[in-house]
């Protein structure tokens, strides 16, 4: 760091990189954000990007179609690796889906103003990531049309789900998380839908936004209850977001498999989820602000703060890796010690070293103020972290399952073409949904931006 630089939290820096660009009024934020949806012509770049993403989504449709025809034999899974890509990708996607609710709920309760311009699309990203995550356990059942077996319903067989199993906890945790995230997102959208209804120039748009806005008119009585509901939802979503990845980690930690059976899993999974979630928010925010000229709303301050959150959670994850090792060696349990050995020297060791490089070493560059303020570096870094977090789940699932207690139960795992097609296909679905979202809904909360304008103009007085 250069010597003449003021401390990062000094008032000078805050003034240099505010959470909102100067000179904005209630009308200007409304017009700027709603114009992206209502008046600006759809750019060629949008069509090209959407077409590419949609084609990749088509790959997913084909891969799942073929899976339904042939069964899970088209994947690389076999005994002893029953989980494979399906669970690796499920955990990866659901982890990404943690940042949205974290930003909306926890940063809301902590009164962090910088969350305002990123919460809407982070919540959308959460919903889409949870949708991608949900596909994997569903198709991993082999007979997705029987998935309703997982829910408690009065069947003629008189059977009920095994409520003592973490897999059933997962069903409840993920479906609750999806539902509550959707509610949170929709409640936040209601006032903005009313704005779009009032600003839309053509009849179909007026009718569609009007129906979705449900006749919202901004009455003080409505706002009063709305704020209560929003605050309560934030309070409810906070423990919920922490519980979801905790329950996902129980899928592993409650089993006796070496490398899985450890009490550090819940906190370290949650930290990893937030880590990858923020990485994905950066991956989306950086091109979004560039494409739509939103640099006034998503300022360097936001990117800087998100990079700091990434750095902090990355260090928690590093601590998790370290302690996993320490506990295995300290316990003296020969299966655990053997697993450590397998991670460092086994057939999948390159994955492990790549994971350390992506998740622990590279993000240390974020300590530098200069690099945090370099948009290109930040973007690349966010991709590196996403790759690293995927590798982490691969290492956890595959190494432990291929090196069980007795050598006769050992095996190898090789993903097939269809494994990759399904995985990459879900990325296509994710990006397609993001493209549609920024085209038809305001990517930044307009009502909350107006509040921010009111607050900043009061501060200036």
């Amino acid at each position, binding site marked *: 760091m250069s010597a003449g630089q003021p401390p990062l939290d000094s008032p000078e820096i805050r003034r240099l990189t505010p959470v909102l660009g100067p000179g904005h009024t209630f*009308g200007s934020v409304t017009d700027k954000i709603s114009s992206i949806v209502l008046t600006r012509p759809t750019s060629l770049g949008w069509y090209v990007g959407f077409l590419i993403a949609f084609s990749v989504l088509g790959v997913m449709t084909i891969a799942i179609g073929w899976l339904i025809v042939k069964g899970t034999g088209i994947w690389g899974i076999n005994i002893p690796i029953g989980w494979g890509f399906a669970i690796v990708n499920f955990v990866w996607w659901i982890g990404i889906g943690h940042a949205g609710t974290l930003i909306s709920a926890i940063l809301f309760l902590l009164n962090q103003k910088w969350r305002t311009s990123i919460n809407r699309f982070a919540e959308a990203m959460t919903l889409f990531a949870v949708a991608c995550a949900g596909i994997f356990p569903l198709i991993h059942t082999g007979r997705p049309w029987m998935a309703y077996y997982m829910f408690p319903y009065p069947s003629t067989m008189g059977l009920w789900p095994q409520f003592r199993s973490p897999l059933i906890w997962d069903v409840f945790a993920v479906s*609750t998380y999806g539902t509550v995230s959707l509610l949170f997102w929709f409640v936040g959208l209601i006032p903005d839908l009313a704005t779009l209804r009032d600003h839309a120039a053509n009849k179909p748009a007026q009718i569609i936004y009007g129906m979705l806005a*449900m*006749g*919202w008119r901004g009455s003080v009585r409505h*706002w009063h*209850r709305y704020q209560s*509901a929003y605050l309560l939802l934030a309070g*409810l*979503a906070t423990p919920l977001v922490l519980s979801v990845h905790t329950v996902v980690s129980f899928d592993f930690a409650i089993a006796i498999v070496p490398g899985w059976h450890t009490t550090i899993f819940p906190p370290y999974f949650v930290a990893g989820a937030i880590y990858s979630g923020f990485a994905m928010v950066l991956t989306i925010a950086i091109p979004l602000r560039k494409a739509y000229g939103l640099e006034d709303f998503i300022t360097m301050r936001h990117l800087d703060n998100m990079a700091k959150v990434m750095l902090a959670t990355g260090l928690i994850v590093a601590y998790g890796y370290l302690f996993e090792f320490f506990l295995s060696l300290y316990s003296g349990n020969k299966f655990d010690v053997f697993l450590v050995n397998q991670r460092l020297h086994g057939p999948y060791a390159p994955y492990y070293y790549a994971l350390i490089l992506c998740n622990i070493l590279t993000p240390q560059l974020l300590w530098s103020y200069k690099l945090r303020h370099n948009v290109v570096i930040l973007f690349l870094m966010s991709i590196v972290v996403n790759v690293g977090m995927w590798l982490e789940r691969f290492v956890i699932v595959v190494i432990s399952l291929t090196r069980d207690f007795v050598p006769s139960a050992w095996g190898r795992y090789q993903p097939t073409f269809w494994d990759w097609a399904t995985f990459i296909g879900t990325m296509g679905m994710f990006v397609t949904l993001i493209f549609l979202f920024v085209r038809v809904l305001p990517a930044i909360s307009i009502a909350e931006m107006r509040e921010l304008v009111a607050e900043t103009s009061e501060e200036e007085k």
Partner: protein
Amino acid sequence: MEQHRSHIYGVMAEFDTPVELVHAAEKARTAGYRRMDAYTPFPVEGLAEAMGLKRNMVPLVTLLGGLAGGLGGFGFQYWVNVAAYPMNIGGRPLNSWPAFIPVTFELTVLGASLCAVFGMLALNRLPQPHHPVFNVQRFVHASSDRFFLCIEAHDPKFHLEETARFLKGLHPHHVNEVSDD
């Protein structure tokens, strides 16, 4: 009083800033008006107090939803494991309550969240496709950059000309009559 209700819903004043609206609401309350409503593009601090709004019912509804979700969730798991399909696994207790906590927690949050959102909408009487305030042309600004105060015709003190004069005295941008059809 009843004759005012025929075609007029109320009189509406439009202000430029949230501060002016809060002052206007305070003055209207001091002047004795009670049946009024304010319309703003974002929640304005201090406006609910100026309008004399007390606590609302949303937290109570949310609490009830959470209790129903939690008690129902635990009770259901208890019933399944103890009554409907008891399985003796090595003599372990049927009511193995620690294993029921994750699902109980999730259903508590689910019940509370559903009640918070749908309770809020129901108490606000939404969805409501039409409302007389939408008859005012300039009301489109209520979702963008203007702040409205509407004194309603069923206020005991309401008198069309006098109320309009009173509102004009607060230096609004515009004053409009709101028709009721």
